[in-house]
């Protein structure tokens, strides 16, 4: 651009005007480039940001960027061409700068003729005399025009605004569902009525982080917790708790959507029925938990959760390993939750038993003890009754009913017994944690009797 602007060898006035035209044309081009560049760069930048945040796939980005550049270039061309100063316009500017009284415009536009040649020659001489007053770089410097400032400010504002919006959205939605679930679990753990769900959520979060856990299992767990949340929501009166439950529910829904519902049917199937331990023998008898060794209580659900191989509770917190006996109680409860046939009485009995456990009885010893009168599967059958093939010959079986069946059956039973009570009575036990003494109005604890203790504890 500056090549022809060096120390000027003033040619003829007409040449000088042509140089001025080129100079001004370049300035106009720069004007449009600097005016159109900020918005184009801003859009490209925002597209890149959206891409890096995974809000935009690569293909649209690849198509968008060239398209924006092409549109910008076209805009420059179409806006630039009409603004390129004509020779008369440039000559007019020269006249104004050199105070040449329209000599340049006359020289550059008048057509030569024999009668006008002497006049033109004289005019050219006069114009040459005024050329020394003008220097292109000095008298026609390039200055950024107002549109550039507007463009730059607008583009910056657009970038900042989009960043703020994106940050806001990312801050809100950028928390992973696992984190959100953990937060909710933490909040719920401080509220006694929701503590059990909180622990379930904590366990779910752990499983979600665990890549070894099958997606079907995660999905079924999510569904299970969702149902429990729904039940708790029906029962819960306090607004804050309701809010927490709603939040948890929506988070789980979003998780469910993410998982895409794959293997949902399979998971439902896997959630119920009777399975033999023939191939899984001992899987539920993992290591003792550091907290006290109630690990055998997790057998029932151990089939569903690989974690249970290690004696962990299906819904237990991995961090709870080594925690006190509460974790053991958790395991117990989780293991027994699916059993819908337990009555109120057995629940109370179970609570009493658990109290004993808490007082120092070794869970390991108990879990190692096999019932003396045959495998449990056979003990539950009437004499002469044939069970399913899958459990034939099994030393013991673990039974887990689908939660829906459990809930339905218990609900029906309760309703048939006492319709009035059934409204407040939970269909599925929610916690086996002993109630704190300082919460007299806490809902009655519902607990199921583990199958092993059905005939032992009264």
């Amino acid at each position: 651009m500056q090549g022809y602007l060096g120390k000027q060898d003033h040619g003829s006035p007409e040449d000088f005007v042509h140089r001025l035209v080129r100079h001004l044309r370049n300035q106009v081009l720069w004007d449009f480039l600097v005016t159109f560049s900020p918005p184009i760069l801003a859009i490209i930048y925002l597209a890149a940001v959206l891409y890096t945040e995974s809000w935009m796939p690569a293909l649209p980005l690849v198509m968008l960027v060239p398209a924006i550049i092409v549109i910008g270039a076209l805009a420059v061309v179409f806006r630039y061409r009409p603004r390129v100063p004509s020779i008369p316009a440039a000559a007019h500017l020269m006249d104004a700068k050199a105070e040449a009284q329209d000599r340049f415009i006359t020289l550059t536009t008048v057509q030569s003729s024999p009668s006008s040649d002497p006049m033109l020659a004289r005019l050219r001489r006069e114009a040459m005399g005024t050329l020394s007053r003008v220097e292109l770089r000095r008298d026609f410097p390039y200055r950024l025009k107002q549109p550039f400032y507007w463009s730059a400010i607008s583009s910056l504002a657009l970038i900042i605004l989009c960043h703020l919006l994106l940050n806001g959205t990312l801050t809100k939605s950028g928390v992973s569902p696992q984190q959100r679930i953990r937060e909710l679990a933490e909040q719920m753990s401080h509220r006694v009525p929701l503590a059990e769900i909180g622990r379930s959520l904590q366990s779910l979060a752990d499983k979600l982080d665990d890549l070894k856990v099958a997606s079907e299992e995660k999905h079924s767990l999510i569904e299970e917790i969702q149902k429990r949340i729904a039940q708790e929501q029906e029962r819960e009166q306090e607004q804050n708790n309701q809010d927490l439950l709603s939040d948890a529910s929506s988070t789980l829904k979003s998780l469910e959507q993410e998982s895409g519902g794959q293997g949902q049917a399979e998971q439902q199937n896997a959630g119920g029925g009777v399975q033999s331990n023939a191939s899984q023998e001992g899987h539920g008898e993992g290591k003792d938990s550091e907290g006290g060794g109630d690990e055998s209580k997790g057998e029932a659900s151990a089939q569903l959760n690989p974690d249970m191989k290690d004696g962990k509770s299906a819904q237990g917190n991995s961090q709870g390993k080594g925690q006190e006996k509460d974790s053991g109680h958790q395991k117990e409860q989780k293991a027994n939750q699916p059993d819908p046939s337990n009555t109120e009485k057995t629940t109370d009995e179970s609570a009493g038993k658990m109290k004993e456990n808490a007082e120092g009885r070794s869970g390991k010893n108990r879990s190692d003890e096999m019932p003396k009168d045959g495998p449990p599967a056979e003990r539950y059958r009437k004499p002469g009754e044939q069970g399913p093939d899958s459990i034939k010959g099994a030393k013991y079986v673990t039974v887990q009913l689908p939660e829906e069946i459990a809930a339905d059956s218990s609900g029906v039973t309760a309703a048939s017994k006492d319709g009035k009570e059934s409204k407040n009575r939970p269909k599925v036990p929610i916690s086996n944690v002993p109630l704190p003494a300082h919460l007299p109005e806490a809902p009655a604890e519902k607990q199921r009797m583990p199958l092993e203790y059905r005939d032992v504890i009264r």
Partner: protein
Amino acid sequence: MDPEKFQESFKGLEAEVRKVIVGHNDTIRKVLIAFFAGGHVLLEGVPGLGKTLLVKTLSHALGVSFKRIQFTPDLMPSDIVGTQVLEEMNGRREFQFKQGPIFAHVVLADEINRATPKTQSAVLEAMEEKQVTVFGESHTLESPFMVLATQNPIELEGTYPLPEAQLDRFFFKLLVIPPTPVELREILKRTTGTETADMQEVLPEDGGQLINEMKQLLRQVLVAPPIEDYVVRLVHATQPQPQNAANSPVRQYLRFGSSPRGAQSVILGAKGHALADGRVHVSYDDVENVLYPALRHRMILNFQAEAENVSADQIMDELVKQVRRN
């Protein structure tokens, strides 16, 4: 002739006239421009401003013949152009053409609006055709020929305003304005003492030839196409056309706009102005300088303009603001 000589002669003429006429510098220049452009000038002003003196002085400085016609209501065309008179020559009586006062290089038509339209029209042919026809016989007027008409904007009773067609034949219409106090003091000093101005002829004896050369040179002055375009747009803008905005002064106050003669006058006047400045090309400033005298009498105001006391110059002001230079 070269432009320097033109400028020298022109400035000499101006200086010579200024020896007698105090002030009116612009009027003097414009009259001279019109003279070299081959046009006629209508001078308008109240009595006593020196209009007649200006014309007389100018013709004296130019060294050309000068006649004055005092227009009155009973003035007949033959009193201007001349008539056939019966004369006895060699024992025979023949009609001989007796030239009227129009046969001069510079004719002062004083208070031209006091004559009847019939008499005014007698001047019309002379101004445009540079010839007069008497009894079917045409008589060519000697070049240079210039009519300087004066009219009084007051005392309009018993006057016959010039028709548009005749007004259009005037190259310029110049407004002779009252002198400033300084000028008035100078006028008093010059006219109430014993000293008289010692005027000299600027142009040589064969001034006619020189004047014609100067007129030729004036037409050779260069005009850039954008400047011509500017003049065209200005003159065109005086037309009260439907496409003009309804609230534009042209639509509001004008009945008719300028004729093409207006544009011709502007260009020729601008050329004369440029040459008088020693330039061989017309500038935008030249155009705007002669725009008002060239167009003001060609823009026919309507009743609303007269009722609201809007002048053609005010409308021109608006037009100059509206029409861009290029």
